[in-house]
């Protein structure tokens, strides 16, 4: 736990210095929103389920763009090796990366959702408690898969190219469940089957690193 806390502090300090992950994420998601808002005009607010897709595509691509950067930072001076040598094993390194990416995603959602509501005339009543749950679970799904794939890609040559190809198919279930849950909420349907699906997906991708992560360090 101590190693995890120290590493989270380190990653936050690095982000404060470099500002390359969080700024990139938020800028990308905001730009995507404006692009759709300008393109669709006032029709955007009448698009039903597609509105949820616009929101989640922004989150998904912003997450994919930026999560890999957290591991890339460790490659410059091979600091990942040094972290693995420290007491406490290797898993805290992964959990710290995941935790910082999760905080970044939730922060991005906190900036983007109010802007989205304004641009697409989303009524206040649709920004309900269950939406916050979907946003949190969706963010967890995106970062769980993304962080694991970033760790996989770290030792691969050309990982910048390989990463999105590996990541995209694995992010499809989280995209579908998150979009459907959000759409059901906004159309006053039953979001819970989709929310439960999202929970199951999150659990699988939080458990998988416990089994696979140690193998990722070898040549």
């Amino acid at each position, binding site marked *: 736990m101590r190693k995890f806390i120290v590493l989270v502090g380190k990653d936050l300090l*690095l982000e404060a*210095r470099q500002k390359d992950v969080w700024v990139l994420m938020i800028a990308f998601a905001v730009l995507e929103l404006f692009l759709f808002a300008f393109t669709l005009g006032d029709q955007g607010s009448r698009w039903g389920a597609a509105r949820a897709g616009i929101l989640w595509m922004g989150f998904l691509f912003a997450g994919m763009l930026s999560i890999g950067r957290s591991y890339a930072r460790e490659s410059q001076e091979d600091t990942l090796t*040094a972290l*693995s*040598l420290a007491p*406490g094993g290797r898993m805290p390194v992964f959990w710290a990366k995941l935790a910082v990416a999760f905080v970044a995603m939730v922060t991005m959602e906190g900036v983007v959702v109010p802007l989205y509501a304004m641009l697409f005339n989303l009524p206040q009543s649709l920004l309900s408690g269950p939406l916050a749950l979907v946003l949190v679970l969706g963010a967890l799904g995106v970062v769980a898969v993304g962080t694991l794939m970033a760790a996989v890609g770290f030792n691969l040559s050309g990982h910048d190219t390989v990463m999105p190809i590996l990541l995209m198919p694995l992010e499809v279930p989280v995209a579908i469940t998150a979009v459907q849950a959000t759409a059901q909420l906004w159309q006053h349907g039953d979001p819970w089957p989709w929310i439960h699906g999202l929970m199951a997906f999150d659990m699988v991708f939080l458990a998988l690193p416990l089994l696979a992560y140690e193998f990722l360090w070898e040549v």
Partner: protein
Amino acid sequence: MANPIVVAEGLVKDIGATPVLRGVSLAIRPRGVLAVMGANGAGKSTLLKVLGGIWGYRGGRLERFGKVVPRDAMPDPRIGILGHQSFLYPHLTLLENLRLYARLWELSSVEERVMKAVQAVGLEWAAQDPVRTYSRGMRQRGALARIWMIAPQLWLLDEPYSGLDEEGRRMVTHMIQGAGERGAGLVFTTHRIDEALQCADAVTIMARGTMVWWSRTEGLDRADWDVLRSRYWGGRAFHA
């Protein structure tokens, strides 16, 4: 005689399909300092990574601190490794880097240790600058400060003299001798026999993944070395 800190017997390591270590054996006791020499690609850096648990091994036996190390890579915080890269975050200052490693290693009196480490490598004047502004030699000093600070029982140093000026080279020699006197075991790679003769108890030559020669440094002179060098560096004799 004290138990060895590390014992390797017939270590074999492949990278992909290429054999890089082909049956390396050695033993390092407390206060023992071994210099590993050899041409580029001989397997020196790989040997240090396997000994340090950064990489696993395919065959042979590795024992550290009295316990057999499984073939999967298994690091140990009692080991300090100097690699080709500094293990320092370029966007943090040296002080911030050292504080980070001190906390990770759960050291007591963090600030005191950090300052002593900075002084030990002579970087007081640049300790508050981001490491990205450092020269190659300054990064090497910073990397050595990290290892000195955690005071490991086994030092594995890959070309510790690399990139350093004369004063820096003396500092490394002093650091290696000091660690040995405090009871640590050390293995370091170098391309210069004078560095090996200054610090090490024994010197070995690696060629194509095996140790082809070794000797105590006591009594070894430069003339002998020149003959060995011509035998094991380059040319067809290397491949025999």
